[in-house]
């Protein structure tokens, strides 16, 4: 069974159809990439899946469960984690604190137990910490553990955001332009990590990315969208060679 099914999804903002009848499925364990020119509606699709936007029509199924009208804060608990195109970290907290907030959907203590810091709370804090440390090891973030986000270089923040998403132990991770703004070397590392997430962690990845070399390297399947509508689907090479896709990119002179 598909892990994620998006059926005929639509949304419009003041008459502009940002997403207009998009359907696709993501299979467990694959890396599925959305490509398309700027303003195509890729980030909007992410926001619809993480329930930050109310769809105008269509359906979203995750793990067989209809999540189309689930409140946004319940999505993480089901196993969907995400990053944002414009990094949305908690700037005044340390890396460690950020990752611990990533554990929020797995919390098992109530506020009044925390107020008294019952032994149960200490136990749970230790468990959260243990899992967060695994993520820190996985993404080589140990040197930054106690640093405040506000002082970190851009490339590190991108990684911290992925780490925060991984801390919630997701089944599906949505990465919105993980390589944008990264140097060649950092992009290389990102490619490895995406491969590791897929192979070592057994995660399913849904990604938006403009860097076609990264897309070709890590993606199992690619869906091209333009002006809110799906254009072509297939391997990275197939999609890149599709005349409709080439036309869409030329029409908007987007980066590739």
């Amino acid at each position: 069974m598909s892990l994620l099914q998006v059926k005929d999804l639509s949304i419009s903002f003041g008459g502009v159809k940002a997403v207009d009848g998009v359907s696709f499925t993501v299979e467990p364990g694959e890396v599925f990439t959305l490509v398309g020119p700027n303003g195509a509606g890729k980030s909007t699709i992410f926001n619809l899946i993480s329930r930050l936007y109310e769809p105008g029509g269509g359906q979203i199924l995750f793990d067989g469960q209809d999540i189309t009208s689930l409140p946004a804060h319940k999505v993480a608990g089901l196993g969907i984690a995400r990053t944002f195109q414009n990094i949305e970290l908690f700037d005044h907290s340390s890396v460690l604190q950020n990752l611990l907030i990533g554990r929020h959907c797995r919390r098992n203590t109530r506020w009044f137990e925390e107020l008294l810091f019952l032994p149960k709370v200490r136990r749970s804090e230790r468990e959260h910490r243990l899992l967060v440390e695994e993520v820190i090891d996985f993404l080589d973030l140990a040197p930054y553990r106690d640093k405040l986000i506000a002082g970190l270089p851009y490339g590190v923040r991108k990684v911290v955001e992925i780490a925060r998403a991984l801390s919630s132990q997701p089944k599906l991770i949505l990465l919105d332009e993980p390589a944008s703004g990264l140097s060649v070397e950092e992009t290389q590392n990102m490619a490895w990590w995406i491969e590791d997430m897929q192979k070592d962690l057994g995660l399913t990845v849904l990604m938006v990315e403009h860097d076609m070399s990264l897309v070709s390297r890590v993606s199992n399947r690619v869906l091209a969208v333009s002006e809110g509508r799906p254009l072509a689907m297939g391997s990275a090479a197939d999609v890149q060679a599709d005349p409709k896709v080439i036309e869409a990119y030329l029409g908007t002179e987007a980066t590739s």
Partner: protein
Amino acid sequence: MSNRFKSRYDDDINLFEGRWHLAQYAILMALLLAAPWLLGTYYLGELTAVLVWSLAGLGLMLISGHTGQVSLGHAAFMAIGAFTNLALMLRGWHFLPALLASAVTSGVIGAIISRPILRMSGIYLAIATLALSIIIEDVAIMAEPITGGVAGVFAPPIAMFGMEIDRYATPEAFYYLCLAVLVLVTLGYLNLLRSASGRSFLAVRDSEVSARALGVNVARAKTLSFSLSCAITGLAGALYAHLAQAVNYESFLVLISITLLLQIVIGGLGSVHGAFFGAIVVVLLPQLIAIASDYLDNTAGIQIAAYPGLDTALFALLILLMVIYEPRGLYGVWFKVRTWLQLFPLYRKGMFRRTRTYLKTERQR
């Protein structure tokens, strides 16, 4: 020196980062416990006032400093706490249950109004909470059976441990009572901050979208924070009533709400220390001005007392300087001094230069 290596996760979970840190607070606690022997009655009273305002500041710090929701209405919750406490005591309740009732009443009323109010943000939230502060003045006049109307109510002495605790008759006992409440609340506050609820408050403050995407029920987190904040402020109100010995509608004017907000800004938004530092400034600044003015009068014949409102003006100036030069408030100053001492003589110039932050363009809400 406190350069130590962490060897267990508990080093980060514990309230105190090791023996030296614990020792510092133990010394502070010992000094506070010895205060009745160290200070005269007058200054013990001032110190008690610092404790009460610290408690009120802690309440506001939770919602404004740690959850990022500004409130210009917290004097209203001090009022609710104060009148609840006195009304119940005058009806024969013991002090402790009445104190608990103050916290619960303020907390519940806070929870009820938080839903509609905390849907707003920024300037609208400021105005809505300001309105609370204004409304409470009228309520305090109209709800005569509880609040004593225009005349207000006097605080009965507190019967506890077989003695009568009264701010003037037994200032030491009242001081210890305030200290005990403050220490307990501070411990609870710190406990929240080091677990999931506290982290969710910080998350809501720094980015609501990502908080939501990480599974934080933002509306619920705001409600919890506001409600606990109101409960703490209600406790402070009850203690304040006994400190002032009598309260009426004029005890909790809008000005008190504003002063409270200024207090936590001066102290340092988003730090527990800040609530305490701010309270010290708010209580002791008028004292300092009085002492300085006496001194000037005696030595140079300059009569500052002839200029009413000088303490308010100085307070305002202090805030202005703070916001411009040290946005992290007195806590920021203290943090720098502490680091300088710890690293001595290795401190480098420019170590605290504010790091560049990246603009968030295109933020979704």
